[in-house]
């Protein structure tokens, strides 16, 4: 069997081990890698099928083992036996400082201002919008994502990640006006809309010379699902602002956009200050629901009708409910006792 394939298995195994709690990894990580390496060497004598079977067996047992160790660690934290005094430890949670709050909320505020101004200009029959707000948000999201990636995805970077993903998707799918990219413009962007995101990912990987920031991101989400909630929140909040009011009268849209944007911005504060993952998940859930429903309510109050595609709305609400539900499985998250 080619050594490169064995090396591949060993490297994947090395990164998978990073999903374990830090104390378990410190105590057993090197030993587990050693044992796995010995097992791979032994299996190589029987051929590539044996090596693959060995690796698949590891993959099969890993999720349950990870869940057990993470649960044991959370139970130990609750009893006070383990202090997550490493601020880089994913389970460590503290209220955000003023600077962190500002950096986290920046894209949401910028985006809300830009969307409200655009809605106002459309309502006033401005045919030429003096700035390309979509491109502006794309650049802000990508810049934040790049810095966050190099910093190994701290909490403030998760919103930028969600925005970067959704604006890339948006660029893929919609007409982007007269802006040209590598000779392609408007409806020809398609898959090229992901170029910028991929370029940022490549640059960050080259700077860090490692994929470990992505492993850290996965591990932090595994430990605290409210982080996934926040990524979804950043992406979906933008989408809601962008599309939910399309069927409303143009004159109403500035007000609807402003109110919806206000809820989006306000939803960031509970995420940064609530202590338990399920609380954070449900707070974000609530903010998104209010964002969506406020536009409908304003439209209904003014026009007397609620022009809503209710089945689609129901699907949105169920999908948006997932992060909140996932957070409920982590009721025993980090407790206030660890806050400095």
């Amino acid at each position, binding site marked *: 069997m080619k050594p490169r394939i064995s090396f591949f298995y060993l490297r994947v195994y090395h990164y998978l081990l990073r999903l374990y709690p830090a104390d*378990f990894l410190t*105590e*057993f990580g090197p*030993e*587990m890698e*050693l*044992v*796995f390496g*010995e*097992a791979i060497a032994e299996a190589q004598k029987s051929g590539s099928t044996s090596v693959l079977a060995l690796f698949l*067996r*590891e993959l*099969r*047992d*890993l999720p*349950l*083992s*990870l869940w*057990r*160790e993470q649960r044991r660690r959370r139970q130990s934290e609750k009893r006070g036996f383990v202090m997550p005094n490493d601020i880089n430890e994913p389970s460590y949670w503290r209220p955000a400082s003023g600077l962190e709050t500002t950096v986290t909320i920046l894209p949401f505020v910028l985006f809300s201002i830009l969307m409200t101004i655009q809605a106002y200009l459309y309502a006033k029959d401005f045919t030429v919008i003096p700035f390309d707000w979509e491109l502006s948000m794309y650049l802000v999201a990508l810049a934040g994502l790049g810095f966050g990636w190099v910093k190994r995805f701290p909490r403030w970077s998760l919103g930028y990640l969600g925005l970067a993903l959704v604006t890339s998707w948006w660029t893929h799918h919609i007409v982007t006006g007269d802006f040209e990219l590598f000779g392609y413009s408007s409806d020809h962007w398609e898959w090229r809309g992901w170029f910028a995101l991929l370029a940022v990912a490549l640059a960050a990987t080259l700077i860090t010379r490692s994929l470990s920031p992505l492993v850290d991101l996965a591990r932090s989400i595994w430990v605290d699902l409210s982080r996934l909630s926040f990524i979804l929140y950043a992406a979906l909040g933008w989408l809601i602002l962008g599309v939910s009011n399309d069927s409303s009268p143009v004159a109403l849209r500035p007000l609807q956009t402003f109110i919806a944007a206000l809820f989006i911005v306000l939803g960031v504060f509970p995420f940064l200050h609530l202590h338990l993952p399920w609380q954070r998940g449900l707070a974000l859930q609530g903010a998104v629901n209010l964002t969506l429903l406020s536009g409908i309510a304003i439209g209904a109050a003014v026009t007397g009708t609620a022009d809503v595609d209710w089945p689609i709305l129901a699907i949105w609400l169920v999908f948006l409910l997932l992060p909140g539900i996932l957070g409920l499985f982590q009721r025993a998250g980090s407790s206030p006792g660890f806050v400095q």
Partner: protein
Amino acid sequence: MDVQDNLPLREATFFILLSLATMPKHGYAIMKDTERLSDGRVTLSTSTLYGAIKRLLESGWIRRVENESAESNGRAKKEYELTDQGRRIFEAEVARLESIVTVARESQADARV
């Protein structure tokens, strides 16, 4: 602590203790021993093995020893051995299994008569 409170043992735990009953061993040797003793029926992954080792260490049934003569990458390999408590638990489990087998055989013999 009453030994009986810890019985019956999980199969993986039993085979790990069985493997260590004769002499201290490191992780890979425990894996191979378990597979051999169970005729290939029980194959431990590293995640299962070390999850079990962690529990056994915390319970005080095994202890870690460093074997200076068995080196890997210039460092002494970590081996594990049964503690007195672990040996009592293991022997109690063997006795329990023996009694089950004895009862089963007697029942079968009675059924044939």
